[in-house]
C-alpha cells in the first residue's frame, strides 16, 4: 500500500499555494509506486477548498469544518488528521513545512506511530522507496532520508521548491469527515491572527526578497528597500547584524537563526555574507549582491554583483525598474 494523503493547509478560508506543490510531489510518488492520492482540508473554508481541488487528480477529498475547528489548534487538527490517516491507511502524508505544518505534524506522527521528515526541499523515488531531501545544520549540508519500515511517513515540504500541479483527471469524490472534537477538550488554541505591518508577502513564500545588512545604518533607511520590494511585489528581509543593531524586527531576519528563504530573486544590500546568513538564502535561484566592499564573501555566492554604495545603487535600481515594469 502506497496510498498518499495530501494535507491542504487553509489560511483565511483559502488553500495555501503549497497545496498544489504537494500534489506535484504526490504525483511523483504515485507515478512510480502506484497507489491512490487523497486530499484533506481542515478548518474554515474546508468544504469550498475541497470543491476547488476536485479536478486535481485526487481519488477522494476529505474535509472537516465546524466551530471547534474554526481556529487552529494542534489538538483538534491532530485528531482529525490522525483519524483520516488511520481510516485511509495512508503510507505517505504530504504537508507544508509551514508554521502550521511544523506545529501539527510531529504530534500527528506520534499519534499514528509514524515518522516525520521536517523542512524537505525535494521528494523522489529511488529503488522503490520515497526519499526526501532536507537541509541540516541550517542548510550547510543536506541529507537524503527515508523511512526504515512501512509505518506512516510524513513529509513536510518547504514552499517554493516544487512546481505547482495543474488541474487534471476526473472529479474527486468529496467526503465529509465527521470530527468529534469539541472546544472544551482543546487545551491550547489560536485566538486570532495579527498580521505583520506592511502587507508584503511572507519571506518564506515571496518570489522576490530585498534584504538589508549592517550597512543600512538605521531603521529608517529600510524605506529605500521597501520601495524597491513594493515595486517588485516582494518582501523585505534583513541580516542578523541589521536585526541585532535594531534596524529591523526579528520577523524579517534571514539566516540560520531567522527565516530560511528560497525566492526566485534575492537582492542582498549591504550584506557582507556571514556563513549564518548564507545558510538562510543560498538556495535562492538568483542572488544579486550590492556591496561597497569588493571582497565581501557575499560575492562568492551571488550570481550578479555591483560593487557600490547601496544608498546610490538601490534608488537607481528602483528608478530603472519603474521605467520598464
Amino acid at each position: 500500500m502506497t496510498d498518499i494523503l495530501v494535507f491542504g493547509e487553509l489560511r483565511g478560508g483559502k488553500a495555501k499555494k503549497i497545496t498544489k506543490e504537494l500534489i506535484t510531489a504526490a504525483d511523483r510518488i504515485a507515478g512510480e509506486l502506484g497507489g491512490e492520492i487523497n486530499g484533506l482540508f481542515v478548518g474554515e473554508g474546508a468544504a469550498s477548498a475541497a470543491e476547488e481541488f476536485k479536478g486535481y487528480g485526487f481519488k477522494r477529498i476529505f474535509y472537516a469544518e465546524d466551530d471547534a475547528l474554526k481556529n487552529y489548534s494542534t489538538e483538534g487538527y491532530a485528531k482529525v488528521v490522525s483519524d483520516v490517516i488511520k481510516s485511509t491507511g495512508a503510507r505517505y502524508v504530504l504537508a507544508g513545512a509551514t508554521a502550521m505544518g511544523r506545529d501539527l505534524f510531529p504530534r500527528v506522527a506520534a499519534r499514528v506511530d509514524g515518522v516525520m521528515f521536517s523542512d524537505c526541499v525535494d521528494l523522489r523515488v529511488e529503488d522503490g522507496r520515497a526519499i526526501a531531501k532536507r537541509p541540516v545544520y541550517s542548510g550547510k549540508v543536506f541529507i537524503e532520508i527515508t523511512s526504515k519500515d512501512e509505518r506512516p511517513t510524513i513529509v513536510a515540504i518547504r514552499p517554493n521548491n516544487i512546481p505547482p500541479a495543474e488541474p487534471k483527471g476526473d472529479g474527486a469524490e468529496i467526503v465529509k469527515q465527521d470530527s468529534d472534537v469539541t472546544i472544551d477538550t482543546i487545551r491550547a488554541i489560536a485566538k486570532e491572527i495579527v498580521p505583520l505591518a506592511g502587507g508584503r508577502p511572507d519571506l518564506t513564500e515571496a518570489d522576490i526578497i530585498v534584504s538589508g545588512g549592517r550597512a543600512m545604518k538605521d531603521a529608517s533607511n529600510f524605506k529605500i528597500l521597501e520601495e524597491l520590494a513594493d515595486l517588485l511585489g516582494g518582501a523585505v528581509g534583513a541580516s542578523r547584524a541589521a536585526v541585532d543593531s535594531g534596524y529591523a524586527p526579528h520577523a524579517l531576519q534571514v539566516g540560520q537563526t531567522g527565516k530560511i528563504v528560497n525566492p526566485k530573486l534575492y537582492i542582498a544590500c549591504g550584506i557582507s555574507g556571514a556563513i549564518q546568513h548564507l545558510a538562510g538564502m543560498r538556495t535562492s535561484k538568483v542572488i544579486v549582491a550590492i556591496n561597497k566592499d569588493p571582497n565581501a564573501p557575499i560575492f562568492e555566492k551571488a550570481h550578479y554583483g555591483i560593487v557600490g554604495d547601496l544608498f546610490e545603487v538601490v534608488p537607481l535600481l528602483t528608478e530603472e525598474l519603474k521605467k520598464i515594469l
Partner: protein
Amino acid sequence: MKIITLLKRVPDTEARILINQEGTGIREDGLKYVINPYDEYAIEEGLKVREKVGGDSKVTVVTMGPEEATELIRTALAMGADDAVHIVDPLLENAGPFTSAAVLAKVIEEEGFDIIFCGKQAIDDDMAQVQTILAEMLDIPQVNVATEFELSDDGKKAVLSRRIEGGDEKYETALPAIISCEKGLNEPRYASLPGIMKAKKKEIRKKTLADLGFETKPQGGRAEIVRWLPLPKSGECKIVEAEELQDAVKELVRLLREESKVL
C-alpha cells in the same frame, strides 16, 4: 512552580560544516560547540517565570548529550538555573526525535513539572519535532515558536504570541504545557561572576539509559539517512561594471530580464 528547560549542545552558528570522509556524518574535529541559541531564550523565560512566581519555584535544566555538554549546562546554571539532569549514554548518539522525546519524557516525569521551556528547534538536525512529540507523550499541550509569553496570575494558563507566516498568532494554553521559544521572546541574561561561582556548587545529576529503566534505546529505528550531500558549488559571480553607476544598474536589469529571466 517546577520549571523545566531543555538544553542541547550544538555546533556554533559560525561553524563551517563539512561531511566526513566516510560520508556518514559531519566532521566534528575543530568544531566549536555552544548552547543551542534558541534554548537560551528558553532558559531566560524559565528564570523570568521563577522570579515572577517566587516561593519555592525551581528551574531544572535537562540535557541529553555527550559528556562535553557539562560545561554548557554549567553556563545555564551560572545564568541562574537551580540544578540539572544530564543524560549521557553512548546509545543515544544520533538519536532521532522519538528516541529523544521518550528519554526526556521519562526524566521529566521523574522530576515533576508545571511548565517546560525549550528552543523552537535545535540548529543541528533542525527537525523541530522533539518538543511536540514530547508533549504528546506527556499528554500536555504545546505552543511552538513563541515570541511573547505571559503567565496568568493563578499560574494555571498562559497567553502567548507565536510567529506564523506574515503575522503573529495569539494563543492561549492551559498549563502544564511545553513552550518552544523563538528569538525575540526575551533578552537572555549573561552569567554574572557570582553566578559562575555559585554554579560550580549546583547539582548536575548524571543518568544513563539504564538508570532511567530503559534496557535499550527506546523508539528508535524509524528513519534511515541514505546519504549526506555537500552544497552544490556556487558559480562565478558576474560583477556588473560601467563608467557611470547608472549604466551598471541598467545592465543589471537587462541581465535579470534577459539572461536569468527572473523579472
